[in-house]
């Protein structure tokens, strides 16, 4: 590892810790940092209300933001490298569209509408993961037949569009109440994950991130192009399955718990490349994780801006920050396509 890379990574770790602390303290009820530290280290203290707010609402939310922020760009980077396409992202293969379709079926048919909290109910998790898994299986099947990555990418985009159309039809024929709940889910939210759900969410995401690190050497070889990678001894087919599996698990699980969070997956890898000026995935992957987590924490704090009047939709914030950034990237590096 080159020295400046190490320094930048350490800086990002420190930034992440600061932002996480701020995220815990920030909200309609301000809790001083010293009290937060006291509560996390096990001393509940006198103020029961603060303790509930921090331990049961904000801590799961902050952890979710960090985990989702780490994982989404990892899925994005894997796909950008694998498809050799700067605008590839976790939602591009139709995986999160698949999740949305299944969640739409469930929510718009009114099955789970009786539950008070829409976010994170078990049926929705099951629906989103199985929707992602179904698309994954289709993509796996297609990728065996279609060897060309560009064709597969176009297939994924078309697949996503078709699914969105079906979701649109479902929305058109659904009740007002169900529609609103579904729309809320598509806005994305970090608030839906409870401490118990975190017991599922965290291990899956952390395992995926470790798995991604073990893929980094293979991803580096893919930068040489598929033919050179193959002649360097890379099992390209196996790598393809691993990349698709990793992307689907990350996207499916996060979509289930937080809704389809936009733009983090596609924008953060570019930010990491600009900041580190490197292609080595052994450094880019941790860089993406740290930058993604920091950005999602900032987005989460921005959703609190209305204060007493509730919170802004997370996807509105990520899109407001992400869309201009992606346009800026394409604008500034018009040779971006040649680089890949």
């Amino acid at each position: 590892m080159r020295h400046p890379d190490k320094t930048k990574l350490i800086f990002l770790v420190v930034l992440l810790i600061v932002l996480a602390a701020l995220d815990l303290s920030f909200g309609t009820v301000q809790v001083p940092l010293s009290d937060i530290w006291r509560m996390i280290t096990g001393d509940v203290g006198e103020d029961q209300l603060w303790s509930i707010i921090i331990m049961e609402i904000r801590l799961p939310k902050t952890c979710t933001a960090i985990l989702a922020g780490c994982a989404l760009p990892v899925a994005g980077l894997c796909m950008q490298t694998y498809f050799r396409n700067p605008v590839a992202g976790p939602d591009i293969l139709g995986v999160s569209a698949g999740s949305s379709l299944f969640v739409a079926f469930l929510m718009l048919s009114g099955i789970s509408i009786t539950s008070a909290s829409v976010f994170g109910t078990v049926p929705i998790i099951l629906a989103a993961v199985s929707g992602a898994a179904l698309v994954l299986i289709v993509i796996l099947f297609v990728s065996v037949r279609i060897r060309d990555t560009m064709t597969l990418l176009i297939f994924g985009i078309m697949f996503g569009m078709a699914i969105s159309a079906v979701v649109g039809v479902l929305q058109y024929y659904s009740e007002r109440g169900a529609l609103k709940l579904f729309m809320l889910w598509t806005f994305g939210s970090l608030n839906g994950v409870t401490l118990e759900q975190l017991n599922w969410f965290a291990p899956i995401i952390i395992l995926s991130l470790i798995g991604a690190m073990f893929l980094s050497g293979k991803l580096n070889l893919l930068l040489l192009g598929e033919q050179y990678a193959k002649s360097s001894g890379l099992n390209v087919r196996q790598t393809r399955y691993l990349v698709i599996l990793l992307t689907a698990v990350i996207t499916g699980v996060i979509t289930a718990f937080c809704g389809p969070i936009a733009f983090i997956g596609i924008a953060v890898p570019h930010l990491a490349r600009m900041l580190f000026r490197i292609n080595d995935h052994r450094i880019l992957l941790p860089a993406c994780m740290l930058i993604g987590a920091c950005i999602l924490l900032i987005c989460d704090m921005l959703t609190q801006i209305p204060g007493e009047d509730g919170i802004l939709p997370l996807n509105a914030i990520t899109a407001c920050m992400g869309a201009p950034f992606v346009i800026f990237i394409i604008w500034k590096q018009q040779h971006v396509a040649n680089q890949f």
Partner: protein
Amino acid sequence: METAGPIVHTAQLSIGYPDKMIASDIRFDILPGTFTAILGHNGTGKSTLLKTIADLQKSISGEVCIDNKPIPDYSVFEKSRLISIVLSNRNEIVQTLRVYEVLSLAVAPHREWYRKLSAREQQSIEEMAAQLGIDRFMNRQLFSLSDGEMQKVAIARALLQNTPILLLDEPTAHLDLHHKIEIYLLLQSLARSGKTIICTSHDVELAVKSASHGLLIGEGRAQFNPMRTLIDSGAISQYFTAGNVQFNSAALRFDYSL
């Protein structure tokens, strides 16, 4: 590889795509330490043959054997210890990579993410870079290199793979004469040091002068022989003589009038 037998061998090979046969009845026995030039007009299947030997493309029928074992029977990893390749399109490799990144991927392709390059690996990269004269721009990104510089990086990458067989697809395309000669001299000396070189080329004059063997491919068929035999039998001059372009077998050059 001191065995007397051929290192690359095929008896009855047909190449092309499932719906389009490009050449058939190809046979050759390539000995270790020889330099074979695959010659032919555009579209006759030179690159297809090269990629079939590298097992980057399936043959239509027949198989290429290395050390008497069909190539598809080797694992991907075993193949990477036998054959290295230089492809003709420089954009195969992501052009934002730096030269040292490409070379370190060649010397330790399957390094786990927590392992650094060993001192020996580092040293072999430096030696190879010095040998090919690319040590001056190890930190530059590929897109900033000229075609000649890029070609040397690609060759250094393949050589660092340290395989007995080296395949090159038109290594001198887009290069000026000076660089072309440099590359052919390098290939010649590599063959003398024991590597088996197989290379496609449009630079007939240079290839004829430097290669020990020739594989002439055209009209769906192929002819493999020592280069001297191909020249003396008139096969080369017959193949490349058309209109007012004539191959001069005595001077090993093209004669033409404009």
